[in-house]
């Protein structure tokens, strides 16, 4: 009985996290950012929270489901925007897991890494889709902007986790 309740609680929490990440993913394009192609990556906060609260598998599930459902809702599924999001999410999630396992980086550093590799994944797929590697020219600008946005989302995720898991070292 207790196990069933625990499973239901876990499923409910994951569903709520997924819903929040979809919401952040969808509302983000409407935020005014002066540099084209640059986003805050607010949905990344939920990905990091999921990683710290649940684990690797759950983070992957939430991130991929977020891209799938948000693209479906926005009507861009299997379009260019969808592949950009998916490639960014897959690379950033993989790298976050590797860095968390093999380095001593905190949630803020992991957030910066996630933003950095998200940009790399997106630029790689843009180069592939447009058959030109010259889009790499945009990568240094995206990386420079990924550092402050990564610190911002990492700090927000840290503050949320501090309140959710009192006393647990992050």
């Amino acid at each position: 009985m207790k196990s069933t309740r625990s499973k239901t609680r876990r499923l409910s929490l994951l569903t709520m996290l997924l819903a929040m990440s979809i919401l952040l993913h969808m509302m983000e394009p409407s935020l005014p950012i002066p540099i084209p192609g640059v986003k805050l990556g607010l949905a990344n906060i939920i990905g990091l929270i999921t990683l710290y609260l649940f684990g690797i598998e759950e983070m992957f599930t939430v991130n991929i489901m977020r891209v799938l459902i948000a693209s479906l809702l926005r009507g861009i599924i299997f379009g260019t925007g969808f592949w950009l999001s998916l490639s960014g999410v897959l690379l950033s999630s993989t790298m976050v897991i590797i860095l968390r396992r093999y380095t001593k980086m905190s949630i803020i550093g992991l957030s910066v890494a996630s933003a950095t590799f998200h940009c790399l994944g997106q630029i790689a797929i843009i180069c592939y889709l447009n058959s030109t590697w010259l889009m790499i020219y945009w990568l240094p600008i995206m990386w420079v902007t990924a550092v402050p946005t990564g610190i911002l989302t990492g700090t927000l995720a840290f503050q949320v986790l501090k309140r959710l898991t009192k006393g647990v070292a992050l």
Partner: protein
Amino acid sequence: MNRSDKIFIAFVLVCALVLYGTMQWFVSSSTTGKTEAVVTYKDKEVLRIDMTKNTSYTVTGTLGDVIIEVKDAQIRVEKETSPYHLCSVQGWVKYANVPIVCLPNHIVILIHSVSVDPNQEDTTVK
């Protein structure tokens, strides 16, 4: 933020700087600033024109000779044999993204230059 985070951030910024420098060097070395016009007949290059010299050139197209004139870093088709003379009507061209196409003669003139007409698109992705 711990030491590992700071090292990673520094690494990202250094990578960005190196990549930016490399790309700048690549772009500046690949664009020499010399303006040339390339004339092709049936997709094969037949003439490469130095746009700094004011002179006329003649290439042979499908319907006859095509006379190309260069003046003040601008190029035009002066005379050709075709039903509507569209390429000679087009007049002087000085931008890299404005080609001269003489379809009946299968002649295309393209300027290879740094300057691009700001009012036209420079690339089309299909």
